[in-house]
C-alpha cells in the first residue's frame, strides 16, 4: 500500500485529522483448522521449556488480581522464577476482589443444553461482534477447568443441600451457567488465587513486591526485558530484569474519576508500555453499568454498584414535570410519573440491556427531570450549572405484591447496602440510581498467545482487549482473568521462553535500562518541581467530567472534537500549575496520583480519537450519528468490523491506526435487537 493511498483511506474515516492510517495488524498465532481444535493444536505446536531450564528463566508479572495472581502462581509452580509486583500492601487487595455476581462456565451441570459453543456464541454476541472469535472460543473451552481448579483450592462456591454446586442465570443468557459465592464471587476467587500465590512465595519460586508501582517498561534490543518501579514506601526507583514481562494490571475506568473501580486502579503500566511501542486497542470501549448509587456531591470519590438483578422487580421512573423533581417521591401522583423504559420499550420494559437503560437515564437527567441532590456541572462554555443526576428505582409495587419480607428475601443485602451508603430507607422511599463507569473492554493489543506486538511483553485479563468486544456480559470478566492466568498464558509463554536462554544478558548498565530509569526520575522531578496552585484531584475530576460528558454513554463528532481540545488545554495547565507536595524519597500518595493522572490525560485523548473515528454505535459506545429511526444503536459491519490498534508515535504526534480485521467463521453476524 502506498503512502498516498493510505492518506486517502484515512480521509474517509471520521476524525482523520487526528491520526494516520498504518499497515493492518494480524493475529498470527492462532492455528488454522476448525475452531474447536485450534487451542489443542496451538498447545501442541508451542515449544516447551524443560524443567531444569525453567529455573534459569525469570518472568516479571505486574498485578496480582485474578489474571496476575493466577499467572504468578502457575508459572511459579512450573518452576520459573517469578517477580510479582502490586501497588497495594498485599496481593490480596487487587480489585478483582470487588466483583460480585459470578463466573460463567460451560459445565452443563444443569443439563439445560449448555455447551462450550453456546458460551462462546453468547459471549461473541454479547460483545456486539467486536471480540476476536478464536480467543473467545478458547475462553469458553477452558471455563469448565476454572471451576474445577477453584473448587480444588477450597473456594466456597454456593452449594445445594445435596452438596453439589449451585448455579444461577445472568443477564442475556438462557441457561444457568453462573457459579457464585453469595455476592462476593470475586473475593472468593481472588483469595483462592492469592493463597496459591502465597504458597509459591513460601516455596521461593515467586518473589513478591507489594507497594511497588511499575513506572516504565524496559525494551532492550527489541524485546521487553524489564521494568522500572518506584518503591512506594521509600521512593526508591529500581530496575528489575527478566526474560519476559506480563502486564496484568486491570482496567482504566478511573480516567473518568468517578467509577466503580478501586481508587488506585490506573493505566500507567499499560500506558508506559504503549509509549514504548505496544499497540493500544479499542480504548473507547467502556462499559457503563446502569444501577449504581448516584453521585451526591462534588467531593464524592467513588461510585458503588448495585446488582442489576434489582431491575427484575423495581420500576424505573422520573417525574413528568421538572418542578416535581425536588418533591418527596411518595407525594408524586401516579399520573405524574414517567415510567420511561416501560413507555419507550414496552416489550423489554425495565429489563432493557445495560447500554440502553444507562443512556435513557442520562437523557432524562439532561432534560432536567433527574432526581436527588443537584450536583455542580459545567456547560460547554465552562459555566456552572446544577443538575440532578438520579432516577427512581421503585419497589412499592413489588412490596405490595410480594410483601416487605418477600422483597427482603430477594434483595435484602442490597437494600441494607443502599441504606448504609445513602442513609435512606429503600423500603419506604424509592431508591435512586444512575449509570456509572464499570469495566473497560479496550486494552493493549495481544495475539492468540496473549503477546503484545513487543516480543516478550504479554498482557492478560482486563488489561488486554481481546475477549469482550464492545460490551461485556455479566460473569465473564472473572472467567477471562482466571482463564488467562491459570490456563492460557502458562501454555503460550513457553513458546517464547524456549528461546530465551539464548538472549543476551541485560542489566542496569544497558542503555535501554539507563534511559528508562532516567526518564522515570526526570518525570518525578518535573512533577515535584512545578509547585503550582491546583491539586492533582482537581485536575483528575475535571478530566473525568470531560470524559464522561463527551466520551461516556453517548458521543457525537462535535462533542469528541471539543473534548480533545479541552483535554489538550487542561493537560497543558496540569504541567504548569499542578501542586505536588512532599518529596520523592518518602511515602507520597500525592506524587503517586500525579503520575497516574498525567497518563490519564494522554489515554483520555486517545479514547476520544478512537471514539471519533468509529462512527457506528456498538455495545457501550453509542454514536448519535449512527442510530436507527427509532433511536436504537446502529452498527456498521461493512466499515468497522475491525479492532482498532493504536500506535504511539510521540508526544503531540498523531497516533497511527492499525486495523485488525475481525473474521467470523464459526458465527454469523447479526444485529442485536431489543424490541
Amino acid at each position, binding site marked *: 500500500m502506498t503512502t498516498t493511498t493510505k492518506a486517502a483511506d484515512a480521509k474517509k474515516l471520521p476524525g482523520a485529522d487526528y491520526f494516520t492510517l498504518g499497515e493492518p495488524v494480524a493475529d498470527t498465532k492462532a492455528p488454522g483448522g476448525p475452531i474447536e481444535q485450534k487451542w489443542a493444536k496451538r498447545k501442541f505446536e508451542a515449544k516447551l521449556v524443560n524443567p531444569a531450564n525453567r529455573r534459569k528463566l525469570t518472568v516479571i508479572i505486574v498485578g496480582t488480581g485474578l489474571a496476575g495472581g493466577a499467572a504468578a502462581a502457575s508459572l511459579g*509452580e512450573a518452576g520459573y522464577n517469578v517477580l510479582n509486583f502490586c501497588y497495594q500492601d498485599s*496481593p490480596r487487595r487487587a480489585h478483582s476482589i*470487588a466483583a460480585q455476581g459470578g463466573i460463567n462456565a460451560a459445565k452443563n451441570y444443569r443439563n439445560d443444553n449448555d455447551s462450550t459453543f453456546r458460551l462462546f456464541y453468547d459471549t461473541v454476541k454479547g460483545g456486539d461482534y467486536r471480540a476476536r472469535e478464536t480467543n473467545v472460543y478458547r475462553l469458553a473451552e477452558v471455563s469448565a477447568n476454572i471451576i474445577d*481448579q477453584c473448587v480444588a483450592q477450597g473456594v466456597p462456591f454456593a452449594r445445594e443441600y445435596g452438596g453439589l454446586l449451585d448455579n444461577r442465570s445472568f443477564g442475556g443468557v438462557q441457561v444457568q451457567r453462573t457459579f457464585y459465592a453469595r455476592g462476593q464471587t470475586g473475593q*472468593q476467587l481472588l483469595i483462592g488465587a*492469592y493463597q496459591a500465590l502465597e504458597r509459591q512465595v513460601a516455596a521461593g519460586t515467586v518473589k513478591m513486591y507489594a507497594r511497588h508501582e511499575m513506572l516504565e517498561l524496559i525494551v532492550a534490543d527489541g524485546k521487553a526485558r524489564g521494568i522500572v518501579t518506584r518503591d512506594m514506601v521509600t521512593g526508591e526507583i529500581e530496575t528489575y530484569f527478566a526474560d519476559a514481562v506480563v502486564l496484568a494490571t486491570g482496567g482504566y475506568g478511573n480516567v473518568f474519576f468517578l467509577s466503580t473501580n*478501586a*481508587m488506585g486502579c490506573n493505566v500507567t503500566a499499560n500506558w508506559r508500555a504503549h509509549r514504548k511501542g505496544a499497540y493500544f486497542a479499542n480504548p473507547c470501549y467502556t462499559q457503563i453499568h446502569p444501577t449504581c448509587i448516584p453521585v451526591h456531591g462534588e467531593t464524592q470519590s467513588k461510585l458503588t454498584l448495585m446488582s442489576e438483578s434489582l431491575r427484575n422487580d423495581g420500576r424505573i421512573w422520573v417525574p413528568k414535570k421538572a418542578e416535581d423533581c425536588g418533591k418527596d417521591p411518595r407525594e408524586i401522583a401516579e399520573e405524574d410519573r414517567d415510567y420511561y423504559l416501560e413507555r419507550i420499550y414496552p416489550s423489554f420494559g425495565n429489563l432493557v440491556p445495560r447500554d440502553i437503560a444507562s443512556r435513557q437515564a442520562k437523557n432524562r437527567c439532561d432534560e432536567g427531570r433527574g432526581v436527588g441532590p443537584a450536583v455542580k456541572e459545567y456547560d460547554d462554555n465552562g459555566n456552572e450549572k446544577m443538575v440532578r443526576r438520579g432516577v427512581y428505582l421503585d419497589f412499592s409495587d413489588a412490596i405490595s405484591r410480594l410483601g416487605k419480607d418477600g422483597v427482603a428475601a430477594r434483595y435484602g443485602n442490597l437494600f441494607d447496602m443502599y441504606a448504609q451508603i445513602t442513609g435512606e430507607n429503600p423500603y419506604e422511599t424509592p431508591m435512586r440510581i444512575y449509570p456509572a463507569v464499570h469495566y473497560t473492554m479496550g486494552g493493549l493489543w495481544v495475539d492468540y498467545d496473549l503477546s503484545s506486538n513487543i516480543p516478550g511483553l504479554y498482557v492478560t485479563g482486563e488489561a488486554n482487549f481481546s475477549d469482550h468486544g464492545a460490551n461485556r456480559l455479566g460473569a465473564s470478566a472473572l472467567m477471562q482473568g482466571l482463564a488467562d492466568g491459570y490456563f492460557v498464558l502458562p501454555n503460550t509463554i513457553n513458546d517464547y521462553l524456549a528461546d530465551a536462554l539464548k538472549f543476551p544478558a541485560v542489566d542496569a548498565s544497558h542503555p535501554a535500562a539507563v534511559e528508562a530509569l532516567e526518564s522515570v526520575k526526570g518525570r518525578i522531578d518535573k512533577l515535584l518541581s512545578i509547585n503550582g496552585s491546583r491539586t492533582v*484531584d482537581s485536575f483528575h475530576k475535571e478530566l473525568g467530567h470531560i470524559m464522561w460528558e463527551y466520551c461516556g454513554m453517548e458521543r457525537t463528532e462535535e462533542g469528541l472534537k471539543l473534548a480533545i481540545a479541552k483535554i489538550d488545554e487542561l493537560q497543558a495547565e496540569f504541567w504548569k500549575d499542578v501542586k505536588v507536595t512532599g518529596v520523592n524519597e518518602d511515602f507520597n500518595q500525592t506524587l503517586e496520583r500525579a503520575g497516574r493522572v498525567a497518563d490519564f490525560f494522554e489515554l483520555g485523548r486517545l479514547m476520544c480519537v478512537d471514539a471519533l473515528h468509529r462512527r457506528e454505535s456498538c455495545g457501550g459506545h453509542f454514536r448519535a450519528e449512527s442510530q436507527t429511526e427509532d433511536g436504537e444503536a446502529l452498527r456498521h459491519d461493512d466499515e468497522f468490523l475491525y479492532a482498532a490498534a493504536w500506535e504511539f508515535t510521540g508526544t503531540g504526534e498523531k497516533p497511527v491506526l492499525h486495523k485488525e480485521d475481525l473474521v467470523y467463521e464459526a458465527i454469523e453476524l447479526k444485529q442485536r435487537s431489543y424490541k
Partner: protein
Amino acid sequence: MNITLRVWRQANAASEGRMVTYQVQDVSEDMSFLEMLDLLNEDLTVKGEEPIAFDHDCREGICGMCGVVINGTAHGRGNSPVATTTCQLHMRSFSDGATIDVEPWRAGSFPVIKDLVVDRTAFDRIIQAGGYVSVNTGSAPDAHANAVGKLKADRAFDAATCIGCGACVAACPNHSGMLFTAAKITHLAMLPQGQPERHLRIKKMLATHDAEGFGGCTNIGECAAVCPKEIPFDTISQLNRDLIASLFKRDGK
C-alpha cells in the same frame, strides 16, 4: 457539618508521632469518612502542607485496605450502627461540631509506615505458612467429584469472608491475630479439599502467628465485635479444637 479532627501524624516507623488538630468545614453527612479525609487533604495541599497518609482502595468495603481507629474503635465501629469498614462509615454517624480522634492500628506486628498507614504483611506470612490447599494448576478433579453439604459449605463461606483488614488485631488488648488465623483455619477445615493438610496447617500457621509477635487469645471478643465482615467468634473455638486434635497427630512433628 463542621468537624474537629485530631489525627495521628508520624513521619515514619522510626520517628515519634503526635496528635494534630484540624478543622474540617462543609462536611456533608453523605460523605464517607475517607471522603471527609480527602476534603481535609485537598485543603492541606492547597495550603502547601503535606496531606495525611492513609490506606484505602476499593471504597466498597471489600478489599480490606482501609482501616483506622476512630474514637477508640477500629473502623469507627463505636459510631456506626452496623458492622463497617472505614470506607463505608458515613459522616451522618457523627454530629455537627464533633471532635473525632483518628489513629492508626496500634500493634507491634503492624509497624507504622506513615501517619495512619501500617504494614500488615505479617498477615501474608501467616497465609504463606499454610493457609492454602496444595494443588497445582491444571490437575484438579471435576468440581462435582466431592460433594460438600450446604451447611458445611456455608460455614466455610462465613469464615472465608475475612478481608484481612487487621481490625481484629487493632481491637485486641493482646494484639492477637487469632480471629484472622482462625478464619482461614475454619474456612479450609470445613471443606474436603482442606483435610489432608488440616493438622499440619494449624501448627505451621500458629507458629508463624506467634513468631510475628501477635499476642495470644484470651477470649475477650473485641475482635469479633469490630470485625467488618462479622467473622464468627466461634472460629477461634474451631481453631482451638483443631489445635488440640493436631497435638495427637504426627503431621508436622
